[in-house]
């Protein structure tokens, strides 16, 4: 077992794919904001795709290692990554040794990154998940975000023939991104011209963007039938229009019910790209039907994630799963297996 000593914590917490089954008790699923990047980095290090990782927000993070070598990969927002001052690529496995320091720079044009480790982090499941949910009091080993001097445990790296990297780099958010939405469930609380306005405006994400909600700056959207609905359930990607007329996109740490009308819901296929839009970033929405959204999901690479989920339960590396995840075993930075005792 090796130890990670957090020297600069940034805004980071341990997250996996989330905690399901407790929304009826007001506990939101939490979980990785950008689940695709979590999947990607976990696949690189040979872990099941939903293995807990350190989710790193936009601020820089430094971590020191104490103990045997460990293997990690970082995926998600574009940013710098270095080991003892030497720059190394994202979306690739690296081995870091005793007393070496990993420095992760500020996100550049993105929000979240996922630091995954071969063998995963040492933590305990709470109601089926390791995700931090501070309000609900869940999180392992810590019931809070990371702080300086925190120590986390990670299994020692095993001998690999070569390090592995993704065949193509993380896409990251495009500029003036178009995010697909499904109208409703309360689109009937808005006039057709208000819905047009929602769909034709170039919005800017507000500076207050966080794991709970991204507010959108732009024109205020008028409610046709008032802004108080009888509170009902929310999902990741619900676009609520607040009393002020400002749209708010509810995300992983949202309240499980809300009392403002929801004009639309983000399509799952575009969720990861949306959450990577940095504060002040531009976004436009395009409406598609629920049938179209589900057909897109089924024909997308996301489907491979299901196959991967199965494959990655098997011990060792599954080449077919890796190929389907668009990863390749590029022999960069190959290590001498003898280095691993």
């Amino acid at each position, binding site marked *: 077992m090796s130890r990670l000593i957090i020297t600069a914590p940034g805004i980071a917490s341990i997250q996996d794919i989330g905690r399901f089954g407790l929304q009826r008790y*007001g506990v939101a699923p939490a979980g990785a904001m950008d689940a695709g990047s979590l999947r990607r980095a976990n696949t690189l290090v040979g872990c099941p795709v939903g293995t807990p990782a350190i989710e790193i927000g936009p601020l820089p993070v430094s971590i020191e290692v104490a103990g045997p070598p460990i293997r990690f990969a970082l995926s998600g927002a574009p940013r710098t990554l270095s080991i003892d001052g030497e720059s190394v690529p994202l979306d690739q496995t690296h081995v870091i040794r005793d007393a070496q320091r990993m420095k992760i720079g500020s996100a550049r044009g993105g929000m979240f990154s996922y630091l995954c480790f071969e063998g995963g982090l040492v933590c305990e499941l709470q109601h089926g998940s390791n995700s931090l949910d501070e*309000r*609900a009091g869940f999180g392992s080993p810590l019931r809070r975000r990371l702080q300086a001097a925190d120590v986390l445990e990670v299994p020692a790296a095993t001998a690999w023939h070569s390090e592995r990297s993704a065949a193509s780099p993380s896409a990251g958010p495009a500029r003036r991104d178009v995010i697909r939405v499904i109208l409703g469930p309360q689109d009937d609380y808005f006039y057709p011209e208000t819905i047009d306005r929602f769909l034709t405006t170039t919005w800017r994400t507000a500076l207050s963007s966080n794991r709970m909600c991204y507010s959108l700056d732009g024109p205020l959207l008028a409610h046709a039938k008032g802004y108080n609905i*009888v*509170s009902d*359930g929310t*999902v990741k990607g619900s676009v609520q229009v607040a009393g002020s007329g400002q749209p708010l996109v509810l995300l992983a740490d949202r309240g499980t019910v809300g009392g403002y009308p*929801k004009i639309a819901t983000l399509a799952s296929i575009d969720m990861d790209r949306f959450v990577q839009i940095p504060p002040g970033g531009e976004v436009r929405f395009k409406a598609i039907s629920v049938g179209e959204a589900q057909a897109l999901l089924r024909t997308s690479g996301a489907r491979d994630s299901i196959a991967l989920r199965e494959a990655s339960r098997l011990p060792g590396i599954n080449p077919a799963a890796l190929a389907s995840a668009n990863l390749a075993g590029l022999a960069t930075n190959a290590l001498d297996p003898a280095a691993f005792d």
Partner: protein
Amino acid sequence: MYAEPRFLPCGDSALSVEFGDAIDEAVNARVLSLDRKLNSQSIEGIIEAVPTYRSLLIHYDPFVTTFANLKRELIPYLGKLDLSRIDTNRAWSVPVVYGGECGIDLENLAAWNNLTTSEVIARHSKVAYRVCMIGFMPGFAYLGGLDPSLATPRRKQPRPDAPKGTISIGGEQTALQSVVGPSGWHWIGRTPLDVYAPDRNPMCLLDPGDIVRFYPISIEAWQSESERCAAMIRDAVQ
């Protein structure tokens, strides 16, 4: 209540079965009945269901089922909802310190409604409330049955840190707040009853369908009432 429930897509991974658009016990009964029905069945693709005042939100796996499929599978259940068994037959007596530091808005709320604070306390504590839904925050209980003479519009600006145990009124609703969190409602009292504890089984003491009755206590009785609540929880958990 709608003549026919509506099926509303909430994105591509959830749908809402909406029975009405008002706070209404008959609507809520249908929601809870469908929820219990689904809990006892296993419909492929359903991840979890979230009962609320007037609709049941069903989260599903879009790789296993679709909106159209699930809707087709759910329709047969709607015709035969058993409304007679939605109450849990559990009733909770909940001590509340009304007013003072525990309920900083009691006086304003009384004045708004042209009542004395004692009248507000009497009217608030004489009702057998029904838990309509748990949500927004962990364990936060929305209660049905508020005396209409106590209805008070929500504050324009929510405040960030309502203490755990806060009893509040917002519009025509009253609620029991389980953990510290933001609230735009009027804070009229506080209870020592711990309705939410992440490490307890069950973590959430109240369920939709439970009955809640409040009784006023003095701040001096906080400690002894707190012990009584702990004993009540021990009995309930066993």
